[in-house]
């Protein structure tokens, strides 16, 4: 350890919550170090390789040596199951979402939506919900809007504004990048949706539609989500922000650095981040201020592991709130198939995007469904072309394995039939007492550290809204002429959309962070990933995480004062070194 090394800011985690802080602070002249537990991949490490991305999980930790403990209710018909506890991977859950510089943003599909003003005032707009801990945000949409706009430019969001009944206010007339190229299916969805009186809109994408900022534009290779981007077009925290932060000479990114404890002194301030390096050696780095952004579950875990003289239950946890109110995205799903026979040659176009969404029911005003209430977003997306994932379900039929010529005919029929469109419906994952993170008392990871223990259940209201939205999506697909249309609500969470656990608020007794995302009980500790969200909106969280991290970066700079220190006295080496 170099005992003298000291930075203005130490950022722990390099995804959507870490990248904006590192970039903005380095840009402003502060000295920043980023600790990232995964390796430093770049565009030359991302290929259209389903074994690498998905089946052998090359970009993820080994779930056996870095497990999580999972408590869920047993799968019973009446839904009144007792709690069952086992390592998450034994239940078929993988809660790691990208273990590398840039984190999960390297692998996102980048369907980006902003929250809407109503999302910041759910409780005061719709009242409390029994069994749920719904809270208003301590900031308003107007506080975050400038940062949503900033993300459009800095991360690079392509799209086209189309007026619709639930369009959120914007400070700019349109997106800085034109939309990515669209598959003919997009136009068919527009026609079908409009004929039903709905308002299909182009889904904004965190994908550059043209080269800019030293990054390539989209190459339309036909594979996007779950795969790393080989051109840099995808707005990962790495490609869009950290590369620029490093180029300032004031930001050092340390890959293979697993943070395990934030050390605090007798005054309660954090003074050092302790981590294991690639060789398993204990190291530490000192800084004036610390920003934690490890994705929601791991952020809560790190804070709970970071006990100190003034923080006997862990940092930020003097009121026992860390880990509570973990949220995901609730919703539904579904799909339909379009046949080449019916839709002809235009359907065969490959590589372009469907990019359509409906937000007609972001607030549901339907007496048949109940009182006016929060609804959500329906994304309509192409079924991912990853072939092994598409073939695997054909190996089983009615409980028996399928092989031989029947399997081959099924494969031919499935792959040559046409194209699929998927419904992804997002509603609020209602926060509640049975969705939380704690430290497991017995299970340890490969470093001997206590692993995160998750208790995960869903609020039944998620299902009602999920069904409502998924069925609306199905209605559009049927109108379009899709076959085999199915839709359903989903109770279990999408494990890639995590937030909450350190909600922000004004009352230290019921929140971990203040409205600036500073820990109530630790003045130089900020949490800048999705952990701050008391509610998640009815959209994927990523744009909001990016925007809030840019907002918090401004708060951090205000706290540090406008006296940036000297630049790091060394050049940056090979990222793979």
């Amino acid at each position, binding site marked *: 350890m170099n005992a003298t090394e000291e930075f203005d800011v130490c950022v722990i985690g390099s995804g959507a919550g870490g990248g904006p802080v590192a970039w903005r602070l380095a840009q402003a002249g502060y000295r920043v170090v980023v600790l990232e537990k995964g390796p*430093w*991949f770049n565009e030359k*490490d991302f290929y*259209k*390789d*389903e*074994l*690498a991305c*998905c*089946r052998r*999980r*090359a970009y*993820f930790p*080994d*779930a*056996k040596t870095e497990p999580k403990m999972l408590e869920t209710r047993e*799968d*019973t018909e009446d*839904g009144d199951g007792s709690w069952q506890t086992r390592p998450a991977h034994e239940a078929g*859950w*993988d809660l790691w979402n990208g273990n590398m510089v840039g984190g999960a943003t390297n*692998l*996102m*599909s980048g*369907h980006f939506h902003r929250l809407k003003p109503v999302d910041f005032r759910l409780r005061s707009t719709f009242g409390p919900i029994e069994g749920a801990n719904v809270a208003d945000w301590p900031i308003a949409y107007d506080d975050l809007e400038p940062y949503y706009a900033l993300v459009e430019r800095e991360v690079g969001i392509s799209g086209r504004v189309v007026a619709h009944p639930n369009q959120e206010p914007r400070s700019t007339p349109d997106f800085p990048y034109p939309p990515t190229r669209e598959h003919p299916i997009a136009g068919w969805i527009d026609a079908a949706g409009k004929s039903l009186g709905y308002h299909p809109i182009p889904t904004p994408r965190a994908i550059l539609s043209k080269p800019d900022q030293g990054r390539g534009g989209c190459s339309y290779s*036909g594979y*996007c*989500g*779950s795969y790393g981007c*080989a051109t840099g077009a995808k707005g990962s925290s790495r490609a869009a922000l950290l590369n620029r932060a490093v180029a300032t000479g004031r930001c050092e990114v340390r890959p293979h650095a697993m943070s395990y404890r934030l050390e605090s002194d007798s005054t309660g301030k954090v003074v050092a981040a302790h981590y294991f390096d690639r060789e398993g050696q204990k190291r530490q780095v000192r800084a004036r201020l610390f920003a934690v952004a490890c994705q929601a579950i791991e952020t809560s875990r790190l804070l709970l592991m970071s006990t100190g003289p003034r923080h006997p239950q862990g940092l930020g946890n003097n009121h026992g709130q860390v880990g509570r109110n973990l949220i995901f995205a609730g*919703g539904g799903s579904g799909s339909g198939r379009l046949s080449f026979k019916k839709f002809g040659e235009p359907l065969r176009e*490959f590589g372009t995007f469907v990019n359509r969404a409906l937000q007609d029911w972001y607030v549901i005003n339907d007496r048949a469904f109940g009182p006016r209430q929060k609804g959500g977003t329906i994304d309509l*997306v192409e079924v*991912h*072309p*990853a*072939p*092994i*994932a598409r*073939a695997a379900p054909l*190996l089983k039929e009615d409980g028996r*394995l399928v*092989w031989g*010529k029947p399997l*081959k005919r099924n*494969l*031919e029929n499935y*792959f*040559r039939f046409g194209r699929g469109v998927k419904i*992804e419906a997002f509603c609020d994952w209602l926060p509640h007492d049975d969705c939380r993170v704690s430290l497991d008392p017995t299970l340890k990871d490969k470093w001997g550290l206590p692993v995160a223990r998750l208790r995960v259940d869903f609020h039944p209201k998620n299902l009602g809204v999920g069904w409502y939205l998924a069925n609306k999506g199905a209605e559009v697909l049927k109108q379009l002429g899709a076959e085999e249309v199915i839709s*359903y*609500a*989903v*109770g*279990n969470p*999408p*494990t*890639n*959309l995590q937030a909450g656990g350190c909600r922000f608020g004004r009352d230290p007794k019921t929140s971990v962070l203040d409205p600036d995302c500073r820990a109530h009980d630790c003045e130089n500790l900020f949490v800048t990933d999705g952990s701050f969200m008391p509610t998640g909106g009815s959209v*994927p969280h990523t744009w909001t995480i990016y925007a809030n991290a840019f907002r918090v970066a401004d708060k951090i700079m205000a706290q540090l004062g406008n006296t940036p220190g000297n630049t790091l006295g060394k050049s940056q080496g090979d990222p793979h070194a």
Partner: protein
Amino acid sequence: MKRRTFLFQTAGLAAAPTLSLTSLSGCGRPGAQADLPDTVWRTLAAVHAHLFPSEAKAPGAAELDTLGYLKAALDVPGFDPAERAAILRGAEAVEAQAKPRAFTELDEAEREAVLRAVEATESGRAWLEGMLNYLIEALLADPVYGGNPSGVGWRWLDHNPGFPRPPAGKRWFLLKSL
């Protein structure tokens, strides 16, 4: 209400598909395939040929080199010895079911009966599911991994593999060591 037991992912991909044998990412040693006996490879070849038969207009296990793919998978550094042992045990179970004859001597109907009997046991079903998973990987994974020679599987199913495709120096187990 019925609790849903599946996940959904925004990318439209399931999380890690669970091979019915054990994970491919455990600890082990390179070159493990070399010490699987030839008799076992002969059994596996016959099983593969039955599970994915060659046809005039559709490639089978032989054309897809599914055995070559499996050998390459076994040779991956760090291949789990427990999975190697499970593959061996499964082949032995097939031969035990075929007794007093050898599986390779059976006709198509007899092979079907043997494999369906194997499927009826829990371990046998897991083994067959594992074999089928290797088969569809050999059919649809990039040829750099040893199966799907020249993309014959992709062509058969009119599948567009996208680009860029993985070079040998960036195969998944090499990325893991970066």
